[in-house]
């Protein structure tokens, strides 16, 4: 079953905020085996010019899971079967580093759904902002829905 193309252009603001904590950044850095002190030690972070410890460049992936219930992918009318999904592409534009103490919210837009051979590609763009409205990051995720493209005439 092809994905519902009426979703293209829809926007999904999250209903809660995400507070970035020092211990969560440390846990994430531990999970990727990264000992960089700028993720762990506020003094080291300040020496590098940051107000507090910062998060690794891919840390914002946690928002997608924390806010999964506000995501278009869980809307049954989209027609996405998660068992057929693989992550195709990911991109982060960091307008500034994510840091401990940030209270983040996101608006995710379905930028595109298109065929790629027998698969479909669904691209979502999320704007991540801090509590004061400062733009923090723009993240772009492309999911591959395997084998769901409308069959084409030979």
């Amino acid at each position, binding site marked *: 079953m092809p994905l519902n193309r009426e979703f293209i252009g829809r926007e999904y603001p999250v209903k809660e905020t995400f507070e970035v904590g020092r211990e*969560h950044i440390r*846990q*994430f850095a*531990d*999970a*990727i*085996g*990264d000992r*960089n002190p*700028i*993720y762990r030690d506020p003094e080291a972070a300040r020496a*590098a*010019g*940051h107000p507090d410890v*910062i998060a*690794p*460049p*891919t840390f914002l*992936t*946690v928002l997608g*899971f*924390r806010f999964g219930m506000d995501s278009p992918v869980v809307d049954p009318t989209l027609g996405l079967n998660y*068992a057929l999904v*693989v*992550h*195709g*592409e*990911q*991109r*982060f*534009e*960091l307008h*500034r*580093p994510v840091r401990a103490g940030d209270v983040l919210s996101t608006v995710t837009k379905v930028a595109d759904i298109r065929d790629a051979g027998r698969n479909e590609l669904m691209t979502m763009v999320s704007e991540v902002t801090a509590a004061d409205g400062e733009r923090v990051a723009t993240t*772009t995720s492309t999911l591959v829905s395997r084998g769901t493209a409308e069959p084409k005439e030979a």
Partner: protein
Amino acid sequence: MPSYADVEVGTALPEQSFPVQRLNLVMYCGASGDFNIIHWNERIATAVGLPNVIAHGMFTMAEAGRVVTDWAGDPGAVLEYGVRFSKPVPVPDDDKGAMLTVSGRVEDKLDGNRVVVGLTATIEGGTQVLSGARAVVRLP
């Protein structure tokens, strides 16, 4: 930290190899919130046609990014980072797991002291697991 003036197109970043074991994936599940069963349950992973439990693509992306952040020193220097996930990283349940090897080189110099770093990530056997992996980094 390397300076913008010191790097040229073609400058190589120090290559690194990252062992990936089941424990790493379990830790990444907890830290990221991505508990997709294919990252920790071999029975289900193989039943849906995967060669084994596979690493989170985002885990692989994070490890590859360490080649850039270790080189830059300050991870806050990374302005953009994007990858395509071209092949999975199977992680067998043995004492070795998988080995991810990542190299990088400066592909372009931009204005504003920014450089483009291209990354290559391979697993044993030479399979490239990322494609189009690039980071934009601001150097002093």
